[in-house]
C-alpha cells in the first residue's frame, strides 16, 4: 500500500516512460477514432484509447476509477456501441468527403485554436506543486473506501440523483426503441382475400375515362357505350343530378363512325377503282 501511495504522490521515471509510450498510443487511438471510415474501426480504436486511459487512472492513484473505466466503459458502453454499429450495418463505410461548405476548414481552425488556447491556459496556470493522493487514499484505509465515504456522505444526494437518471435513461431507451404492435400483422393471403371479397373488384373508372365530357355530373361510359351510373359521386346520384348524355353521345359516336366509314369507304372505293 505504501509503495502505491508513494507512486501516487510523486512521479517516477517509470511513470514517465509509461506516460510517453501509452500517451502516444492514446493519441493515435483518438485520431483513428476520428479518421477511420468504418464505424467498427472507430469503436475499436476508441476502446484502445479508453484502456490506455484506464492505465493512466491507475497511475494517478485512482484505482477504483481505473477498474470501473475498464469494466463499465470499455466493457459495457463500447459493447453497446458495437451492438448499435452491427444494427446499423457493419459494412456501412462513411464517406469522409465533406458536404458542408467550409465546415472542415472551420472545424480544423476552431480545433487548432481551441487546442492552442487550452494548452496555453494549462501552461499559464501555476501547477508546479502537487500534493499527491497518499494521505487522501490512506485516510479511510484505501482508495475505494475513501471514495465510498465521500459518495455516501458528502455526495449522497448527487448519487441518488444519478441513480434516478440511470433509471430514466433506461426507461427512455426502452420507450424510444420499442415498437408497439397491438394486433396481429395481416398475412399476404388475408390481404388478397380481402381485396377480392370487397364490393367492387376493380377501381371505378373516373369520370371522363370513357366519356366525352369531363364534367363530374356526367357518368363515364362502359365499353359498350352505356353510362355507368356508379362513376358519378354519391351526392349527385342521391340528388338525381346526373346528366344522361348516353344517347346523345352514342348518336354522336354513331355519326362519327358513319362519317369515318363514308370517308374510308370512299377511299376504299377509289382504291378499288385504282386497282
Amino acid at each position, binding site marked *: 500500500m505504501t509503495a502505491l501511495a508513494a507512486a501516487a504522490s510523486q512521479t517516477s521515471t517509470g511513470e514517465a516512460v509509461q506516460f510517453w509510450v501509452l500517451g502516444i498510443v492514446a493519441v493515435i487511438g483518438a485520431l483513428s477514432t476520428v479518421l477511420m471510415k468504418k464505424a467498427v474501426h472507430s469503436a475499436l480504436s476508441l476502446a484502445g484509447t479508453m484502456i490506455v486511459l484506464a492505465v493512466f487512472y491507475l497511475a494517478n492513484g485512482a484505482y477504483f476509477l481505473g477498474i470501473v473505466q475498464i469494466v463499465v466503459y470499455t466493457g459495457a458502453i463500447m459493447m453497446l456501441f458495437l451492438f448499435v454499429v452491427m444494427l446499423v450495418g457493419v459494412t456501412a463505410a462513411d464517406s469522409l468527403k465533406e458536404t*458542408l461548405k467550409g*465546415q472542415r476548414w*472551420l*472545424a480544423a481552425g*476552431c*480545433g487548432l*485554436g*481551441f487546442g492552442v*488556447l*487550452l494548452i*496555453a*491556459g494549462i501552461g*499559464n496556470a501555476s501547477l508546479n506543486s502537487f500534493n499527491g493522493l497518499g494521505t487522501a487514499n490512506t485516510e479511510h484505509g484505501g482508495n475505494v473506501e475513501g471514495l465510498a465515504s465521500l459518495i455516501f456522505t458528502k455526495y449522497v444526494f448527487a448519487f441518488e440523483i444519478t441513480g434516478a437518471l440511470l433509471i430514466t435513461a433506461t426507461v427512455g431507451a426502452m420507450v424510444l426503441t420499442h415498437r408497439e404492435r397491438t394486433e396481429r400483422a395481416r398475412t399476404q393471403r388475408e390481404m388478397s382475400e380481402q381485396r377480392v371479397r370487397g364490393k367492387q373488384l376493380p377501381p371505378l373508372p373516373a369520370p371522363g375515362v370513357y366519356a366525352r365530357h369531363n364534367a363530374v355530373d356526367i357518368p363515364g361510359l362502359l365499353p359498350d357505350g352505356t353510362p355507368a351510373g356508379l362513376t358519378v359521386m354519391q351526392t349527385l346520384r342521391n340528388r338525381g343530378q346526373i346528366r344522361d348524355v348516353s344517347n346523345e353521345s352514342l348518336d354522336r359516336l354513331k355519326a362519327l363512325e358513319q362519317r369515318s366509314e363514308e370517308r374510308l369507304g370512299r377511299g376504299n372505293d377509289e382504291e378499288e377503282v385504282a386497282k
Partner: protein
Amino acid sequence: MENLIALLVAAPLLGAAVLLCGGRRLDRAGHWLGTLLAAVSFVIGVVLFLDMLGKGAEDRTLHQKLFSWIPVEGFQADVAFQLDQLSMTFVLLITGVGTLIHIYSIGYMEHDERRRRFFGYLNLFLAAMLILVVADNYLLLYVGWEGVGLASYLLIGFWQHKPSAATAAKKAFLVNRVGDMGLSIAIMLMFTTFGTFAFGPVLAATGETSEGKLTAIGLMLLLAACGKSAQVPLQSWLGDAMEGPTPVSALIHAATMVTAGVYLIVRSGAIFNAAPDAQLAVVVVGAVTLLFGAIVGCAKDDIKKALAGSTMSQIGYMILAAGLGPIGYVFAIMHLVTHGFFKAGLFLGAGSVMHGMNDEVDMRKFGGLRKYMPVTFITFGLGYLAIIGFPGLSGFFSKDKIIEAAFAKGGTEGWILGSVALLGAAITAFYMTRVMLLTFFGEKRWQPDAEGHQPHPHESPKSMTIPMIVLAFGSVFAGGFFSIGDRFLNWLEPVTGHSHGHAPIGAATVTAATMVVLVIGVAIAWAMYGRKPVPVVAPRGSLLTRAARRDLLQDDFNHVVLVRGGEHLTRSLVYVDHTLVDGVVNGTAASMGGLSGRLRKLQNGYARSYAVSMFGGTAVLIAATLLMRAV
C-alpha cells in the same frame, strides 16, 4: 344708434343662413325673404344716415364693440364696428344697389330651380360686404374681404354644371387669394409694427415708424386691392367672372365688391400719404389698368365682357385717383358711387337684353333692339351717356374731377397721368359707343340659338325694369347732386382729408379737352360701327385687336408660366416624393431585407454547422477569459 350697425349686418346674414339651411320648403318664398332682408338692411342704413346727418361733422363716427374675437396674449382682435362717413357712403351704395338687384333677380332668375339658393348667396354677399366696410380693424375687414370672395365664388359658379362657370369661379377665388395674401401680410406687418391692427391706432401712428415699413405695408395693401379690384397684374379673373348670372355681374363685379380695393386704399390713406413710393405704385397700377381695361373693352364682342373691361378701366380711374393722395380720395369715392349706379344699370340692361335674346351674349348677333326693348334702351342709353361723361350726367362730374386731379398732381408725373386719363376717356367713349351701336342700332343680326329657337326680343318684366329705371335716375342725377356745392367733398372730408392741387391748366381747359376727346371717341366708333353694317362673324382684326380679345395675352402668360409651370412642378414633386423621399425609406427597408436574407443562410439546419459556431464561441470565450486574466 350704435346697435343698429350690428343689425345692419345681421339682417342679410340671417337671410343667408335661413335660405341656405332652410331646404326646399322655402323655395316659394325664399326670394321674397331675401329681398325683404336686403331692404331692411337698406332701411337701417338710411336711418343711420339720417341720424348721422343730424350730427356735427366731427362726431359723426359711430363705434360698436360686439365682443372680443381672438384674445391672445399681446394680440387683441375684436368684432367691432366703426361707421363713419366713408363707411356710410358704402353702406348706402351696397344696400341700395343691392336691394334693387335683389328685386331685379326675382324676375331674372324666375325660371331657375335654385333661385332660393341664389338669394341666399346674394344675402351672404351683402352681409360680407357690409362687414368689410363697417369693420373697425383690418382683421375684421379681412373677414369681410374673404367673405365677399366666397360669395363671389359661389355666385360666379352658380351654374356649376357648366365647366366654364366652375373654372371661372375657381380662378376668381384663386387670384383673389393671391391678393388676400397681400392683405394678411400687411396685417402681420401692422401687428409687428404697431402692435395692433385697428384702424384708429394704426392710422394715427403712421408718423412713428419708418417710411420703409409703411411702404411695405402700402405695397401689400395694394396687392390686396389689385386682387379684389381686378387691377393689373391680378385682373385676369374679372372677364371670366362674367360666367355668373348677370345680376351678380352687376352687383358684385361692377358696383360693389370690385370697388373694395378702392375702399381699402382710401381707408388706409394715412399709410399711403406717408409712403410716397407705395403711392406711386398705386398710381401706376391705376393708370395701367385704366388703359388695359379700356383696350380690352374695345375688342370684346361679348357684351358682358366688354362691360367687364370697362369696369376694370373705371376702377383704374378710381385707383389712380386714390393714388394721388388727398387730392383724389374724395373723387375716387365719388366716381365709385356714380360708377356703381351707371355700371349696375348697364349690366342690368345687358341682362335684360340677354333675357330677351335667349341668353345670347355676342353683340354681333344683336342689332336694332331699340324698338323692341324701349325701356331697356332708354335706361341703358342713359347709363351709356353717364359713363362716357356726357355733360351734366353723373360720369361727367366724377370723371372730370379725377382728370383734373391727375393734372393737379403736378410736374411731369401730372402731365403723364392726366394724358393717360384723357386717353382713357376717349377710349371709353369709343367702346361704349360701340356697345351701344352694336346692340341697339343698325341691322338685326339675330341668329337662332343652339336649339334652333329664333329670338323674339321683348321687354323684360316690371321687376326687372323698375330697378333699371331707378338706377338710370341715379346715373343721371347723382353726379350733379354730389358736385353742386361740393356736397360730397364736404361730407367725406373729415374722414379722408382733402387738399387742392395746383393744376397746371385750368379746370375749364380740362373739361374742354375731355369734351374733345369724347367727341373723337364717339366719332371713331360711329365711323366704324354706325355707318356701315357690322359682320356677324368678327373679322380677324389687327394684332392689337386679337391680343385684346385674348385679354392682352394675360391668360396665355398665366397659362404658360403659372399653370403649366405649376403642373410640372407638382408632377415632379410627386415623383420626387415617391422615388426620393419614399425611396430612401424603402431602400433602407430593402437593404435590411437583403441583409437578413444573407444572414438567414447561416441557419442552414445542419447541426454540425451550429456545433462549429458553438465551438468557435467557446474558443472565443476561453480566449477572452485568458486575456482578462492576463490583463
